[in-house]
């Protein structure tokens, strides 16, 4: 049976198509001006077209993410925590602590070996606690987010940031640039700040091996390094398609839930 999972996040929409436990296709779009339900339709239809499928080929669709209720064609919707735990179990059955850093929320999810979320803690609706903070600062430094992350790896300083709000931090970064602080050190300061906020949330559920990082920021090597340091651990497991893990979890749950 073919199932689909759709994750309507605060910044991107992700779709995963699954057939008999194998990923058949996936798609990510930036909705921009589109309304949530239109964005969901667009992402779904584009994913299907790329895989050579139609909506009729799909047995069931489950939805997750901040906008999951807007997905009219979904059979059921599940929380980000459940979807994340399920998706992670596909890659790392040994995972016990999941760190999920999206655009607007950084959260910790506790999981047992069965793919269920047993506990979670997060701080949502504040841009400073998650990916969009790093992205805004990378724009202030006029670097792509990837280059921003790579730059931070070249720094060994630990400059604390005073500002806790994205709006104030932009001014702080500008004045650091004017004081000739190297971009590498600023980048590290920013990623350290986000990592520290995310880590505080994860500590509320406790840190147990294996620790897995999901969400878009997992692509950022600089952020992964800052997070390891904040959590005082040597290893963080990274799945192949970290931003799709929620959607994958939905597709898996759809397959188990059946028609």
């Amino acid at each position, binding site marked *: 049976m073919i199932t689909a999972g759709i994750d309507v996040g605060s910044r991107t929409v992700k779709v995963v198509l699954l057939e008999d436990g194998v990923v058949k296709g996936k798609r990510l779009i930036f909705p921009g001006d589109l309304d949530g339900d239109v964005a969901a339709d667009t992402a779904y239809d584009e994913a299907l077209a790329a895989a050579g499928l139609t909506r009729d080929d799909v047995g069931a669709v489950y939805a997750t993410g901040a906008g999951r209720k807007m997905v009219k064609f979904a059979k059921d919707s599940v929380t980000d925590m459940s979807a994340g735990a399920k998706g992670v179990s596909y890659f790392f059955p040994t995972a016990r602590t999941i760190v999920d850093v999206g655009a607007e929320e950084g959260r910790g999810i506790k999981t047992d070996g069965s793919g269920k979320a047993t*506990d979670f*803690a997060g701080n*949502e609706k*504040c841009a400073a606690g998650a990916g969009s903070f790093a992205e805004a600062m990378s724009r202030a430094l006029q670097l792509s987010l990837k280059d921003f992350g790579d730059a931070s790896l070249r720094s060994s300083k630990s400059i*604390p940031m005073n500002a806790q709000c994205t709006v104030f931090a932009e001014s702080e970064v500008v004045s650091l640039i004017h004081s000739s602080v190297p971009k590498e050190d600023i980048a590290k300061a920013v990623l350290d700040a986000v990592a520290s906020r995310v880590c505080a949330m994860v500590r509320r559920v*406790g840190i147990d091996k294996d620790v897995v990082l999901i969400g878009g920021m997992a692509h950022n090597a600089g952020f992964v390094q800052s997070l390891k340091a904040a959590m005082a651990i040597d290893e963080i497991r990274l799945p192949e398609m970290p931003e799709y893990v929620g959607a994958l979890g939905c597709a898996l749950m759809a397959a188990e839930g059946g028609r």
Partner: protein
Amino acid sequence: MIANYGYKDGSGEYYISIDTDRCINCPAGHACLAACPKGMFETMTDDYDDEVTWIKAQFRRSLAYDCAECKPSGARPPLPCVVACTPGAIKHSW
């Protein structure tokens, strides 16, 4: 005076209130200072020349994160600072 340290942002309201009238000549010897695992409290002389306790400046804007360890998800064990303050001057808004 009631001094409220903290903030409100998109994710919620996080304030620690200290009733400084109860702080003056503290019968608990400002035990809150040692009780907090992050050392967030310190004593100072306020604008009216009284010896009271406040939250150190570097913590005031990140209370949701700094207090996170004392507030595990799903549980609400007694907070070390509140327990240590026998005059009952300390309150958390979340």
